[in-house]
């Protein structure tokens, strides 16, 4: 029975991979939220100079497979970069800021983070747009009538409500980001799926390796789910502004 367990070394590999999965999906989700909001605003802008490029971005990133996009960032873009820049990106760097050191990650992280962020941002932008659409237009008109400036209408009236409407699907996109991060194993990022495959190769304990990985993914998604329910319970009424 005991020999069916994974040796501590291999459990360690899985945990290391799990950290990378958490880090890359959390960073990508945060960056994608900011970028998605900007994209949504551009998409809704009255001028076509902003709306059309945003539309092009959304269709490009939503309509191509993430795996192909990752290959593009890792293999494709790297082939176009000047040699010196790529070398710099691939060598480890250290900076010492006031209290802590910053380490430049290997190119796999950069490419994986970039690919996942840009892909997720396109989906988040559309969730935000749906949220904005969900705010009755009369509210914006009324806010203008009350003398708010256009940016104030957005800042104080539309966006807070839109955000609340968009929250459940937004969390869904974060869960997708966690799951999609597994595709970065194709470009050599040592995240959870990559680690489980490596453990499987060395130990031949297929069920254990992929089983533990599956549980960690389910656990992460469940935590996001619970966090979402908690937030919604604290701010229940849809569209209610306190």
């Amino acid at each position, binding site marked *: 029975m005991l020999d069916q367990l994974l040796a501590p070394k291999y459990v360690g590999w899985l945990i290391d991979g799990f950290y990378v999965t958490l880090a890359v999906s959390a960073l990508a989700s945060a960056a994608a939220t900011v970028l998605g909001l900007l994209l949504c605003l551009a998409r809704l802008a009255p001028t076509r100079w902003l709306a059309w490029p945003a539309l092009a971005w959304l269709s490009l990133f939503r309509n191509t497979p993430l795996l192909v996009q990752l290959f593009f960032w890792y*293999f494709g873009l*790297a082939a176009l970069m000047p040699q010196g820049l790529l070398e710099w990106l691939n060598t480890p760097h250290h900076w010492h800021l006031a209290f802590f050191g910053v380490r430049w990650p290997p190119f796999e992280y950069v490419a994986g983070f970039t690919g996942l962020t840009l892909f997720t941002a396109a989906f988040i932008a559309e969730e935000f747009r749906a949220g904005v659409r969900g705010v009755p237009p009369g509210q914006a008109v009324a806010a203008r009538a009350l003398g708010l400036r256009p940016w104030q209408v957005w800042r104080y009236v539309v966006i807070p409500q839109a955000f609340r409407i968009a929250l459940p699907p937004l969390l869904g996109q974060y869960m997708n980001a966690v799951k999609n991060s597994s595709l970065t194993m194709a470009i*050599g990022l040592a995240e959870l799926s990559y680690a489980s495959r490596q453990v499987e190769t060395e130990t031949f304990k297929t069920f254990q390796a992929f089983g533990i990985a599956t549980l960690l993914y389910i656990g992460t998604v469940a935590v996001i789910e619970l966090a979402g329910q908690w937030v919604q319970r604290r701010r229940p009424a849809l569209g209610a502004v306190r």
Partner: protein
Amino acid sequence: MIRKFRFLALLALSALAGVAQADRLDDIRKAGVLRVAAFDSNPPFGFVDPKSKQIVGLDVDYARELASKLGVKLQLVPTNPANRIPLLSANKVDIVLANFTITEERAKQVNFSIPYFASGQQFIAKKGTLKSADQLGSLRIGVDKGTTNEIVLREKYPGATLVAYDDTPFAFTALRNGNVQAITQDGPKLIGLLANVPDKENYEIPPFSISDDLIGAGLPKDETRFTEYVNAFLRELEASGKAQKIYDAWFGPSTKTPLTRIFRIGDK
């Protein structure tokens, strides 16, 4: 019960061994034919030449030399990897020359000659960047997912950063882009890959390997005299320079797949 069974098995084995006492070397000379199992689709070890429709290759050259040394005719029997041992034990061939890696498991069923070829785990790097195995510990190296190459490299050079890709062409692209400084695979596979690369003059396969798969001739079990004869023949081939000549015909500098000869007969 089990013990009785074991005894019976032993008895059967010794009976078989008794049959094998008849000397194969004399049989071959008497028949005037040397029957050799060779690959027919594994270039450059043994494959059908599209022009002549004959089986040719590095292993076939060794077979030809052995037949001429014995003064008998050569009869080639095409085989695949799985059939090599059955052909020998069913007495369909006298010797297997088919990129036959020497393993302990196989040595229980057949006799092996001394190795005459080694295919080791080697590296491709940009020219001039990788000179010796000592450097490996500080490099980023691309490997193929799920291969023994990855495991061997991690065990021997724990300091190296390994990046695993889905297959060798992906790993090579990463090398070309500079994401890794070297990639690793079996030497003959690497040379096959490099042969199809448009800018191959920028890359090289440094002449060292970190593991060896030793290739030997497979002979019938317990044919000691025949085995020793083949060993002497192989040493002689190396001494006369013929082994080098055969190697150069398939892996020499003027071929499509130039690979520096690291292993010589008698090294191991």
